[in-house]
């Protein structure tokens, strides 16, 4: 792989309405986000020749969505590996563009899980689910709690250290008008919130919101016609290590180790080159495990790494600058919003929370029960 290959770029990003959005369907949310993202790029619907989406609202989300939007793509990818699907969509779009298969990809996501919660009452469990579901572990939070408990046992990680992640996210959210939760919280507030699954408290867990998002990826050639400067896709990597939490090889090591290494190698950069990181924060433990596996610190040292407000505004490791899934929004599969925020930081569009002169960003999604990992490294000219 040629380093710093500028072949494909993010040229448009947008959210739909976020938060509590009653009376809108997942198709409406995605249509709104798609239109806004194409407007952001200065592209028309007919420029789109590849469709990417992930959801469980249809047996074939790509076909339902593309029909609704009036798009007949020449490339379609419905990879669904949970919340990190959209990092993989960006990676697959870059690969498809590199292969010369299409020029403009539209990636969308939408969920109404807040206003229309759908949790089917399971009466029968099939295939490999049958060895876990009868024990009643709530998914996904219980699985993340198992990982957190193991990490605490192995490394002495504390609830206070986990809480740092939630507190920092909230202080970023205070500077994001679109964030759902903006009032400041303290470490003590996190510790005082009720248990969900020990050792995770309520405030260790992401929000449950509605919302949608869209990202437009273009070939270098198509990007020349975009309204805004390109956010280049410089490196990417993905893997999944297991499906059920019991089969995670080591509860303290995620597949970010592999996806991160691959992305850094492809981009030809090192950790110190990065200006901002957006790391999926489904739960506070998700961030700690990701930081270690991505190599920002050694195994077991992530608790100390985030302490003292290091990832908060003004800290020397700006992370999750929109407030994250913990405080901004979390409509089920949050990964697309990491990409939206990274692109905006690199374009200098983030107003009060804008980082100075941000040139390189790392985006890392985690899906399932720490099952899938997908890393994207983005940079501007």
């Amino acid at each position, binding site marked *: 792989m040629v380093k710093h290959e500028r072949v494909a770029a993010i040229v448009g990003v947008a959210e739909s309405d976020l938060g509590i959005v009653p009376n809108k369907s997942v198709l409406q949310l995605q249509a709104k986000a798609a239109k806004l993202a194409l407007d952001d790029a200065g592209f028309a619907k007919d420029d789109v020749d590849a469709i990417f989406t992930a959801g469980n609202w249809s047996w074939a989300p790509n076909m339902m969505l593309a029909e609704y939007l009036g798009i007949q793509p020449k490339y379609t990818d419905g990879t669904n590996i949970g919340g990190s699907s959209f990092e993989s969509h960006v990676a697959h779009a870059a690969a498809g563009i590199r292969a010369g298969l299409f020029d403009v990809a539209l990636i969308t996501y939408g969920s109404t899980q807040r206003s229309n919660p759908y*949790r089917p009452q399971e009466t*029968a469990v099939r295939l490999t689910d049958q060895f876990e579901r*009868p*024990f009643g*572990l*709530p998914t996904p939070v*219980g699985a993340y709690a198992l990982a957190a408990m*193991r990490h605490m046992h192995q490394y002495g990680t504390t609830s206070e250290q986990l809480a740092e992640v939630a507190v920092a996210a909230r202080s970023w959210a205070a500077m994001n008008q679109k964030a759902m939760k903006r009032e400041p919280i303290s470490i003590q507030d996190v510790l005082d919130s009720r*248990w969900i699954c020990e050792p995770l408290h309520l405030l260790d867990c992401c929000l449950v919101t509605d919302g949608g998002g869209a990202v437009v990826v273009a070939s270098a050639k198509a990007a020349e016609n975009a309204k805004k400067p390109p956010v280049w896709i410089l490196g990417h990597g993905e893997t999944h290590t297991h499906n059920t939490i019991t089969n995670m090889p080591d*509860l303290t090591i995620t597949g970010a180790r592999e996806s991160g290494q691959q992305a850094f190698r492809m981009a030809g950069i090192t950790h110190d080159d990065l200006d901002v990181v957006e790391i999926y924060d489904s739960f506070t433990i998700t961030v700690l495990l990701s930081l270690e596996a991505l190599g920002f610190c050694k195994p077991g040292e992530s608790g100390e790494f985030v302490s003292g407000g290091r990832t908060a505004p003004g800290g020397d490791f700006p992370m999750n600058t929109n407030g994250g899934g913990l405080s901004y929004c979390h409509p089920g599969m949050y990964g697309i919003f990491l990409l939206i925020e990274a692109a905006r930081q690199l374009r200098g569009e983030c107003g009060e929370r804008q980082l100075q002169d941000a040139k390189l960003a790392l985006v890392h999604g985690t899906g399932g029960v720490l099952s899938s990992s997908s890393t994207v490294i983005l940079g501007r000219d």
Partner: protein
Amino acid sequence: MTVVPRPVLDGDSLKYWEGLRNEELWIQRCNDCHQHIFYPRSICPDCFSEEITWVQSGGTGKIYSFTVVHHAFGPFKEQLPFVVAIVELDEGVRMMTRLKAGSKNPSVEQRVKVIFERLDEELTLPYFEPV
């Protein structure tokens, strides 16, 4: 009686669930690479051999991790709080389980042994309790 999600027995799992009904914990071993295997399957995830043998587990092991659950869905709500654990059997494989109600102060690495929680005539679940 609480109606928990019921396993749909298939070509992999039939013998496992039948064993539990008889208060026996059966796992598998690969005849070629000699690794133990759980959950049951038709091919070795280590060496891809199809020469798989059922073996009865000694039923002892240690807690790899656990969580005290305070928030659950559906039929499990009325059981709160309860402890779900991942147990590593002495044979080397891990399985999800529930610690017996009333197990005091569970801890990671604690030694445990299997008990058989009979829900009804059809379904027995493998729970564990501290040794």
